[in-house]
């Protein structure tokens, strides 16, 4: 695991969910689905709630799989000169997203599935569009940064900052979904 600028916070968090294999690649232990005690009445509110929860979890797992898949990109994958995604950034992004999902579920908020890609610099990028709002999170070995925008003007309609903390995640999500 490389040194992480800005303290050990992320290192500690990452080791909770990620282990490194002898060949140097990471795999993340996916949270298994919990058994659902389905209500016998298919029309009951409880049954509908269980179904919706299952859909949201399936959405999360699909996104996590997409993040894992982008680590196989090679240099120049975008048709120009993009670097392949950094493997540590892949782990950080998966961990961050699972934490966000848990926080959103606990708070009973709406879950939105992000678009997954990587940047030319090798960062993993998650992006949500909720017109006109756009939220983009960049994951690298150095940082977890956000850009939020609601117009074209860089000075007055965009904002950047650190996306690492739960407090900032909650603030960003509230902004995106409000």
């Amino acid at each position, binding site marked *: 695991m490389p040194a992480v600028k800005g303290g050990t916070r992320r290192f500690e968090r990452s080791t909770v969910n990620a282990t490194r294999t002898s060949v140097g690649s990471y795999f993340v232990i996916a949270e298994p689905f919990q058994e659902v005690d389905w209500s016998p009445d298919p029309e009951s509110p409880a049954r509908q709630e269980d179904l919706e929860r299952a859909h949201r979890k399936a959405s999360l797992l699909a996104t996590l799989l997409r993040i894992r898949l982008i680590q196989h990109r090679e240099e120049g994958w975008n*048709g120009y000169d*993009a670097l392949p995604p950094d493997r540590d950034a892949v782990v950080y992004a998966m961990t961050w997203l699972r934490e966000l999902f848990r926080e959103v579920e606990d708070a009973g908020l709406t879950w939105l599935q992000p678009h997954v890609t990587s*940047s*030319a610099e090798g960062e993993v990028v998650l992006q949500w569009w909720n017109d006109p709002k756009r939220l*983009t999170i960049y994951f690298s070995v150095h940082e977890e*940064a956000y850009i939020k925008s609601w117009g*074209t003007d860089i*000075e007055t309609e965009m904002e950047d900052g650190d996306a690492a903390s739960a407090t900032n995640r909650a603030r960003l999500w509230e902004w995106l979904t409000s």
Partner: protein
Amino acid sequence: MVPDPDHVADDEELYRSIKQEFLTTEDGVLRARSEAFGDREQQVSVDRALLLDKDPRRARRTEGAAVACLLASAVRIKIPQRDVKGREVGTYVIDVIPEPRPDNPAHAVIYANPDFVSPNHFRKLREHLARTHQIVLLPEGE
């Protein structure tokens, strides 16, 4: 109109090849996401439309890619450069200049002067480009 080999005019159109995975639909309009304008050297490669006879198919970098069009005047913006306390200490000037290559005489680059200090500035520029382009060639069978 004969393009100036040493200068990109404000009314010139610039093409950027866009892989299909960067495309999305917003209000029924096809748009490219910000990462479609990424570059590890913070110099966004584009092609001058006039030098491609305004044929966006010639700007494709990968088979079946879409092509976005930017207007040079919309690219040329100024961004205040601020210190950690938010005080304005200078200005980033975004420009587009010709950078012809042996294999691509239409090549030009969008860049900042001076170079961006924080990666967030370039991220915001990408977002600006993502909000100001038009898709002029649809993707095909990618």
